[in-house]
């Protein structure tokens, strides 16, 4: 029935795809967020240089997404290396799913943070009262990546 000595090799294939996709997609999202917001900061900083440091917040929030991807990548890498023989292919697919969950969620969150951050910093330069609203929307966008991280960590616990 189940051969306890040999580990199904495809488990490592799918597991490592999970590791790679967590890091790659999270970094894609993070870079999009930082770049798009950064362009907005550069545009509005020409006329309102005092607001530049306050406006760096979207860039910081986008940077956190890369950290989420790295955390999940490191955790999954440890799990993939120690796949047990009894349910090897199941574990491999679970780690693939974990990597995709974290990576694609962070990508989506990064898109959102970038576009909202760009519009937000430009609007903040014209109207002071927008700052709090921009921060609130950015927090909601960041929470999306957190949901992906949570589900990834749940999936990485499969045995």
């Amino acid at each position, binding site marked *: 029935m189940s051969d306890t000595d040999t580990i199904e090799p495809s488990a490592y294939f799918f597991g490592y795809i999970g590791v790679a996709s967590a890091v790659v997609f999270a970094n894609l999202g993070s870079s999009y967020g930082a770049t798009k917001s950064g362009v907005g900061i550069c545009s509005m900083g020409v006329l309102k240089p005092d607001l530049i440091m306050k406006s760096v917040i979207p860039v910081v929030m986008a940077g956190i997404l890369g950290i989420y991807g790295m955390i999940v990548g490191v955790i999954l890498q440890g799990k993939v290396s120690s796949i047990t023989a*009894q349910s090897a292919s199941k574990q491999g697919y679970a780690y693939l799913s974990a990597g995709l969950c974290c990576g694609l969620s962070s990508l989506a969150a990064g898109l959102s943070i970038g576009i909202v951050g760009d519009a937000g910093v430009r609007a903040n330069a014209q109207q002071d009262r927008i700052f709090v609203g921009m921060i609130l*929307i950015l927090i909601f966008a960041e929470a999306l990546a957190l949901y992906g991280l949570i589900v990834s960590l749940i999936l990485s616990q499969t045995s």
Partner: protein
Amino acid sequence: MNWGNPYNWDAAEWQQATWGERFMFIDPYFWSYFGVGLALATSIIGASWGIFVTGVSLLGSTVKAPRIRSKNLISVIFCEAVAIYGVIMAIIMIGKIQTIESYPNGQQDECYTTALFNGYSLFWTGISVGLSNLICGIAVGVTGSGCAIADAQTPETFVKILVVEIFGSALGLFGVIVGIIQCSGATFLKNCTS
């Protein structure tokens, strides 16, 4: 569970296997976990799409009408709810996936077919829930964007457009309800039959 050779085929039978038969050898656990990943990832893509569509309009309109800022954050919260639907469904689906450790003697075929049923069920649950939430997020986002712009010009329109948003947000709920019913039959049993 290492299926190994589910139908106990030898090399000659493998050589004349059709594509349909090879398709059936894709592991049921792959379908299950991929369904979980799809449910979550597409829900969150929908939520993020909605958030940035609404957020941009909200921030732009608030420049000239600062009073609309706090009221229109409710559109962003509707989009966040779509992401939470995805998380709930993903956790429900993860709870359904167990390791099959053994099967009764001589019932490897039945066991594998049951596992395939469970796997397909979870995969398509992921598709139903994920795509519904993707579309719901976009719908709520576009409506919320219109709501912010209209509210900036005419405050009376806010509540009326909010009703439209609530109808849009019901799409995600339909997806979750159908998804729960769809994956209710998918139970991986430890001994495959009990």
